[in-house]
């Protein structure tokens, strides 16, 4: 009986052990790159892998929580545009509770190539999103454009001091589409 059970065990072992696992593979032929149709513009997520190459000023080099970055007073980015038509300025950001306690209500002014696109006042902390069409004449196709968002009051660290903080920036950029008329 023991012998039979043993044989059965060996057979089961062989059965399960007879895996079909392959030998390690060599790297395959590398695939070609396929050009995508050019986009008119783009929205930069602060977590995008190439985002730092678009920074002009006042955006922290350190990514927080894998999604956002601290700004200074006037965070500015540079984008290459393939078109100047039907572009919408889009910013996704948050006023931090901690900075709001010191600054109180703040005003955010949006700029495109140093043209003032609009100003918005925030009387409470929290996440915000703004979208606003950009006049085509402010932009040139196939040229770079600068986008900025200036906060009127920055949070100043207590002594011995440090970097002043503006707001939490999550995404900023231009998107080609028509906004619904309200």
């Amino acid at each position, binding site marked *: 009986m023991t012998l039979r059970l043993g044989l059965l065990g060996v057979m089961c072992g062989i*059965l*399960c052990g007879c*895996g*079909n*696992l*392959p030998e*390690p*593979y*060599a*790297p*395959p*032929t*590398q*695939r*070609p*790159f*396929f*050009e*995508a*149709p050019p986009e008119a513009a*783009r929205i930069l*997520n602060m*977590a*995008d*892998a*190439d985002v730092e190459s678009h920074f002009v000023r006042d955006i922290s080099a350190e*990514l927080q929580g*894998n*999604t956002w970055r601290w700004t200074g007073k006037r965070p500015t980015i540079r984008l290459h545009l393939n078109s100047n038509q039907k572009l919408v300025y889009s910013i996704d950001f948050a006023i931090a509770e901690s900075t709001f306690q010191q600054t109180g209500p703040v005003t955010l002014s949006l700029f495109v190539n140093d043209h003032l696109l609009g100003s918005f006042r925030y009387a409470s902390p929290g996440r915000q999103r703004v979208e606003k069409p950009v006049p085509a004449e402010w932009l040139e196709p196939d040229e770079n454009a600068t986008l900025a968002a200036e906060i009127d009051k920055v949070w100043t660290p207590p002594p011995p001091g440090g970097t002043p903080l503006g707001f939490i920036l999550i995404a900023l950029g231009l998107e080609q589409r028509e906004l619904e008329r309200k």
Partner: protein
Amino acid sequence: MKALAALAGAAFTVAACYGLGSMIAARLGARLRRDEKFPLAFVLGAGVLHLAVFAVMALKIAYKPVLFTMLSACVAAALATGDWRLPAAEDAGRDRSLPVGIRYLFGIVAAAFTVLYLFNAWAPEISPDGSSYHLSLVALYLRARGFTPVLTNVYSTLSGGVDILFVPAFAIGKHSAAALTHFAFLIALALSVLSYGRRIGQPLAGAAAALLVYLSPVVGIDGTSAYNDVAVAAIVFSVFYWAQIWDSQRDGRILIAIGLLAGYCYAAKYTAFVMLVYALAFVAWRTRRMGPAMVVAGCSLVMAAPWIVKDWIYIGNPVAPFANRYFQNPNIHVSFERNWTAYLRNYGLKNLWTLPIEATLRGEVTQGLLGPVFLAAPLALLALRSRHGRRLLAPCALILATYFGNVGTRFLIPSLPFVALAMALALEPAAPLLILLVTAHAAASWPESLVRYTQAWTLQGIPYKAALRIIPEERYLNDHLEYRWARLIDDHVPPGKRVLVRSEVATAYTSRDVLTGYEGAFNEKMQDLLDVGWDSSSQPGKQWTGSFPERRVRRLRVVQTGTSEIPERQWDVHELRFFDAGVELPRLAEWRLQARPNPWDVQMAFDNSEATRWRSWETLRPGMSIEVDFGREQPVDQVRVELSDIDWNVRMRLQAMDANGRWTPLPAREELRQMRYAGSVRRAAGYELRAHGVDYLLLKDTDYGAQDIAQDPARWGMTRLVYASGASLYHVNPNQVNP
């Protein structure tokens, strides 16, 4: 001519089964009664003939003359030996006849349903599974003259002991011949239930039970289609029947029949394997010895082993498509098995307590209904009071136990003869009630009645014009979308080319190589390419970076440590890259790549294509890994893993192999970034489809991704060839997918 060919194909196959079975039964010394000889000999012969056809297929000599000769030999030998003849009527023994009135009533009912069934089986075959995998595999094997590895159709891995009998029938009479062959099993099943009632001296119960089974709507439509459930029921009941004959005659040779049929149960459908358990237990119980049970076991192995070996050789898994975690293979994904079996356990029913109503009255969700009279099935338990009842309910319980693995109503058919007989035995003392029950069942099961209370899969009428081909076959079939899609493929795709579809088409009516999206690991990968092309959550959207002080390593691996409560969540790696001082290490030929699980696709994470991804094809769990052996020590200071956007739960750690061959943690500064692929994922997906030999794509309007491709096929490097019947056929254009 087609009608005659169909009839001839089935008749010839059935005759061969009966002839062969008659000869074997005679040599086993079984004393069969006149009324039970046809059903028992036919099913036993079917089992043995299936082995012969299997051998022909394995030898790849499935030519028409070979098959024809084989069938002819069975018939001729039975005629020559005299075994073909039925025993004389006086063998009937202690039979008691039914009263004339009941005999006429039951006879008229049976005749009416036989006409209904015959014409439905004879009409062009368009049942969902019959016109797809059951007969597409038969047609494929016939084109290949025998078995050929079908790695892109998971259904080819199921044991096909009944389907293989369709091969000779199909060779002669095409699709309808297969359905008619299955219909012969339905006749045999009803006759065997009828004759068992007579054998135990309760003919009214036998007749009533035979009709309860025969008239059941799901039995009717299944038994007249190129399916196998009714045949399985006939085989299962035969095991029981032969066991009872052996018990009364105690001739050891009959054990061979029991063993062969018990093994044939496995060969016909995995879930019927429990009849082997029954047979072994019954024989051991009645003899109190292991020897006779060993005879049964040995004979059953003869029938079951070919299917086990076939799957082991072709698929690398002897019990495919199940147990893929234990028998790892590149052909069936573990995730497929999990999703599929999970679905079969409930068919989307949220409350399994509704199953009795669903299986007897509604049938829409579980794809068929037994008929309202089976709501009275618990009456069968009253049969426990008698010895015959207890003997029926024991195998019934075993068969029912497997039902919860697949709650489709069809999967109740094998237990139906036992339930029906037990119900009839319980009600036989109240004969008028039993007769009323049968009459009500007949009334409720006729097509005109069924449309009043169910929209389930049932027969719709008597298609005699289609059966006799007064309506041309093509015209009849054209009323069905699945057939039109198959014709679309045949009309526009050159022979030898592969077509990817996302959902079923009537593949039995096309000779092209059609890959149905979910039916195999390769198909799933091709479907995944489409998903990556249009579905942003499947696209590379996250880049995990592990940075560390430069270190010389030869072997390095990324180990996944996260878990997910959502079973569908996997680990998806589009690309795995290594850097030193900001420069990516070129992927050299001497590198060696491994992954666990799913080692077969590891190259997809190293091909520089964002359309492809290595996937675990298993639920995310700690311990999964991708490993690289650089072939020599290599300075590295950063690893980047490009993940699908949906991979929220993935967590990774790096490990390097030390000089002692042990994996040790490689502390790294981790960062997870969002990423955007600058190129065209759609074009890359088109390129990969073509690189994998898929030149055509058929998408129905309702298929995932169909809209995206229809809006601009050129973005995918495709051209729409034709749009018809709610589906588009695309050609993957080589000029557009080549850079």
